């Protein structure tokens, strides 16, 4: 039986300073501080259990990471359980741990609102109309890419080699409905010029499997840093995805991936549906917006990415029909309905899903504008439309004008800016931050460090992503008037003692 797919998304935003000069690191720090500064107490990040150099294949790669251990400059933990920080030269938000694909959509939308609030605060702080603008995209069109990573809880005992080869089929072909679209190309292939692609990211992948995320990017990333009990779980760190503006695309991206991973865990993935030469095929699929490009499967069958997706859909349908479980938090039915809808639309007339699929929505704008003004391909205004599709300023965002279908209400998004998901350990983290910000020295995905006035500090480990939920911990929190009472109630078996780390 597949594990419940606890999941989340981490998005690096593109950033621009307008009306003043600042390095991207400074601009990102100013942006985040403008928001975090409004919180009652800034909570540090606990780096004690961070191991980005651990490889799922069973070794460590020290040198690759030495120069790029994360900036400790700005690192805020929010009351909704999210993390908001500077990663390299970008502002990044990781959603809290979510229990369903719909919840990921909600917290991804809340993250967008947090970025917008940060931009607004900056505009008020900066003189003479200067502003910091964030873009929810993944490339600058000049060969520089930044990520939108997904994370899924998978069982440690699923053999990683099988997991990697089977999930690659989905990662290479799912771009037909979750690609965010791109004008132009950033890497050479077959000496051809490409006007428009399905994916922002396909240009940047060079390996099938590997540990890196910034160089020689692999389709399957092997970072083995589960942020939970490593004997039971992996966190599959997915780096191939585009940041979506369409809520339905985010829902489908996370929902279908959760289902396919569950099918792999349960040994129900169709074994002949592994495709040959996935790195090159990912680029070729991205570069053919007629969706006709055929890939070859390991048993020699030639099929388009759309057909591969239809076969995956049918395999999932069969898998779910034989199971009483819903491994994606109650969303399986809705995911299947929308997956079918989007595939039917793409099979008959891609323009019919312009309200769901980002690359289709963006292409309509780009092509419509090009025709209206008689512009040559490669005209900068067409690339400007591409970039501005992802602009986080309401006044400039083109995605918000493109008629995209929404899935979550504004009221729920506003709530999710400050309230954590109830079903995961994010609830305990968020509620503790709301109630006792002065007593929390540092927090992390899998722990909270309290200073309750006794030496040494008290660290509460949270190694189970589905514990710490409202159902499990509300009574405990309600009965604790102070952080000290909470620590006392948890008792010696549930807490550890630690000494302060630099930066807390």
């Amino acid at each position, binding site marked *: 039986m597949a594990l419940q797919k606890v999941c989340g998304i981490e998005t690096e935003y593109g950033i621009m300073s307008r009306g003043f000069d600042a390095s991207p690191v400074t601009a990102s720090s100013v942006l985040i501080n403008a928001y975090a500064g409004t919180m009652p107490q800034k909570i540090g990040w606990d780096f004690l259990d961070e191991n980005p150099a651990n490889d799922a294949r069973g070794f460590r790669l020290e040198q690759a990471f030495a120069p790029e251990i994360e900036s400790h400059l700005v690192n805020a933990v929010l009351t909704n359980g999210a993390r908001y920080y500077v990663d390299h030269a*970008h502002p990044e938000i990781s959603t809290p741990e979510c229990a369903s694909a719909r919840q990921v959509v909600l917290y991804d939308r809340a993250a967008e609102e947090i970025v917008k609030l940060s931009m607004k605060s900056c505009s008020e702080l900066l003189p003479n109309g200067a502003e910091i603008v964030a873009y929810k995209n993944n490339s600058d069109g000049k060969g*520089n890419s930044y990520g939108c990573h997904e994370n899924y809880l998978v069982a440690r005992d699923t053999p990683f080699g099988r997991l990697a080869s089977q999930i690659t089929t989905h990662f290479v072909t799912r771009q037909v409905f979750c690609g965010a679209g791109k004008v132009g190309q950033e890497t050479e292939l077959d000496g051809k010029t490409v006007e428009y692609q399905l994916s922002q990211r396909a240009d940047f992948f060079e390996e099938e499997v590997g540990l890196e995320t*910034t160089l020689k990017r692999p389709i399957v990333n092997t970072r083995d840093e589960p942020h939970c009990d490593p004997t039971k779980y992996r966190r599959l760190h997915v780096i191939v995805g585009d940041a979506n503006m369409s809520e339905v695309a985010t829902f489908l991206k996370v929902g279908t991936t959760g289902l396919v991973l569950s099918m792999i865990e349960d040994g129900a993935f169709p074994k002949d549906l592994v495709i040959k030469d996935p790195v090159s095929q990912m680029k070729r699929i991205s570069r053919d917006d007629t969706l006709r490009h055929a890939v070859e499967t390991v048993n020699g069958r030639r099929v388009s990415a759309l057909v591969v997706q239809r076969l995956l859909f049918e395999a999932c349908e069969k898998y779910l029909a034989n199971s009483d479980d819903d491994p994606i938090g109650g969303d399986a039915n809705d995911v299947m309905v929308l997956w079918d809808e989007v595939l039917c639309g793409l099979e008959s007339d891609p323009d019919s899903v312009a309200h769901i699929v980002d690359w289709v929505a963006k292409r309509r704008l780009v092509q*419509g*504008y090009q025709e209206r003004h008689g512009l040559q391909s490669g005209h*900068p205004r067409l690339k400007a439309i591409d970039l501005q599709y992802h602009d986080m300023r309401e006044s400039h965002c083109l995605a918000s004008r*493109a008629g995209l279908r929404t899935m979550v209400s504004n009221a729920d998004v506003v709530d999710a800016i400050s309230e954590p998901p109830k079903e995961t350990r994010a609830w305990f983290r968020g509620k503790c931050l709301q109630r006792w910000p002065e007593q929390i020295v540092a927090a992390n995905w899998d722990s909270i460090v309290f200073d309750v006035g006794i030496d040494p500090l008290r660290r509460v480990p949270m190694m*189970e992503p589905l514990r710490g939920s409202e159902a499990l911990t509300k009574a405990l929190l309600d009965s604790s008037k102070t952080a000290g009472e909470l620590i006392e109630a*948890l008792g010696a078996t549930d807490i550890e003692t630690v000494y302060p780390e630099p930066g807390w």
Partner: protein
Amino acid sequence: MTGLLHSRYGGVVAERTHKTRPSSSPREGQQVESEDAVASDTGDRIKAELDDLLDEIDDVLETNAEDFVKSYVQKGGE
């Protein structure tokens, strides 16, 4: 007070309260709010609105698109 946050102490197992898919085909089990109606309407509406939308793009597109595209330079991330 054990097991609420951490499993090695063998506490309460989180209840899995998610709903099970109905046994009917998912194509029939339309739980997403009236998707079909919304979809066909939206398709037509988007087509009709494309002209208005292109007008709007003229209004909101960066005035100097060439400079904007040139100056949009990011450092790699991740």
